[in-house]
């Protein structure tokens, strides 16, 4: 004799109702199929024919589940009878509870639905994962670029100064500040700012220390480290007159370069590097924060 309960359980799509009620429904449907089967056998049908006849009693399991779902939730359907009208005051009282129950049923139904089609579930999860990932990346960028403060002393008081000449602004919107302007601004800025420093990024080639390497650095005016509030780990910052013409080239290197190319040598102060074929003495060392590698050439005007 076929296991009609298993047969129904396998075919009937999930109905959102308490599990014990669902078990009851399965039991009762199985009961009726069983009756059809048994009666077919009594009237002389073969086992196969009896099974076919019982199976034909539910031609569409989805439709059955849908109809049962509606029948199971008379409170959600429009009131159709005196009995339901009588229930209505109680219904209002328990509406909140009902909502919550419905939510739980829906959640359970969704989980079952997802487990029933793992490929779809996987696709959905991947979509979420990608979406969350992309959002995180964008937020991280926006956070570090736009939102988080610069890693310097009193970052809210730092201002980046550029030069705009209205007459040529349509062709060259922003100009770097030329050294002459800078020296005059630096002298005359006391009223508006505490200190001013200049910086020009530069590329140079390091030789004479194993593999040659292209380095990105900057030419700076002596006051930059004061403005940014950075103190070197070793050695000293540039002195006030060290940008005067004719002074020997000195460089400040960052912590990463110190560790990577110089092996973290504690006696690094005074060593000489060849940058673009010019000897530069390491005067100071190891910026505490990992900002760009900084070099200084003697002839900053």
């Amino acid at each position, binding site marked *: 004799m076929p296991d009609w309960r298993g047969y129904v359980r396998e075919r009937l799509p999930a109905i959102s109702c308490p599990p014990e009620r669902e078990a009851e429904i399965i039991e009762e*449907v199985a009961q*009726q199929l069983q009756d059809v089967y*048994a009666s077919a056998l009594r009237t002389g049908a073969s086992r196969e024919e009896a099974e076919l006849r019982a199976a034909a*009693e539910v031609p*569409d399991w989805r*439709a059955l589940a849908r109809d049962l779902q509606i*029948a199971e939730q*008379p409170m959600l359907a429009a009131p159709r009878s*005196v009995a*339901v009208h009588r229930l209505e005051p109680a219904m209002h009282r328990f509406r909140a509870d009902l909502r919550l129950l419905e939510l739980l049923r829906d959640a359970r139904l969704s989980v079952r639905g997802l487990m029933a089609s793992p490929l779809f579930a996987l696709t959905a999860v991947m979509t979420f994962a990608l979406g969350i990932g992309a959002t995180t990346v964008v937020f991280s960028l926006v956070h570090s670029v736009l939102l988080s403060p610069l890693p310097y002393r009193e970052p809210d008081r730092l201002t980046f100064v550029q030069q705009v000449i209205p007459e040529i602004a349509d062709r060259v919107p922003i100009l770097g500040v030329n050294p002459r302007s800078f020296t005059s601004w630096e002298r005359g800025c006391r009223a508006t700012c505490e200190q001013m420093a200049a910086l020009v990024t530069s590329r140079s080639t390091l030789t004479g220390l194993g593999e040659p390497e292209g380095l990105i650095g900057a030419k700076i005016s002596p006051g930059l480290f004061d403005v940014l509030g950075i103190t070197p780990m070793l050695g000293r910052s540039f002195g006030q007159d060290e940008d005067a013409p004719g002074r020997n080239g000195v460089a400040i290197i960052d912590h990463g370069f110190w560790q990577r190319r110089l092996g973290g040598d504690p006696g690094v102060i005074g060593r000489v590097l060849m940058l673009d074929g010019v000897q530069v003495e390491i005067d100071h060392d190891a910026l505490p924060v990992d900002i760009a590698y900084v070099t200084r050439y003697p002839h900053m005007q």
Partner: protein
Amino acid sequence: MTKRQARGARRLEVLQGTLDLMVLQVLDTIGPQHGYGIARRIEQVSGDILKLNEGTVYTALVRLQHALWISTSWGVSENNRKAKFYTITAAGRRQLAREVDSWDRLAGVIARLRTLEQP
């Protein structure tokens, strides 16, 4: 089989909403009955014109239970098997009376239309 199919082709689908009425009527006439028995009884009375399947009948039974028009109990069927028996309630009888009344009126309207509006 071919005979069965030929007959099946002429069988009627149950009109939406009339199955509840039929089930109530059967339970009112023959007393407590299980699902299978109800379906066979309706088919038998209809002279096998109606085509019912157990799924449809079961859905109607669930609906009627929730409306409190029938009650259920476990019992033993004629061939000695455990089965769920359905019994019409007092509310179910009142509902049956109302539905029969409106059905009769509707049938009367259709009958009159058929006689008066014939070309």
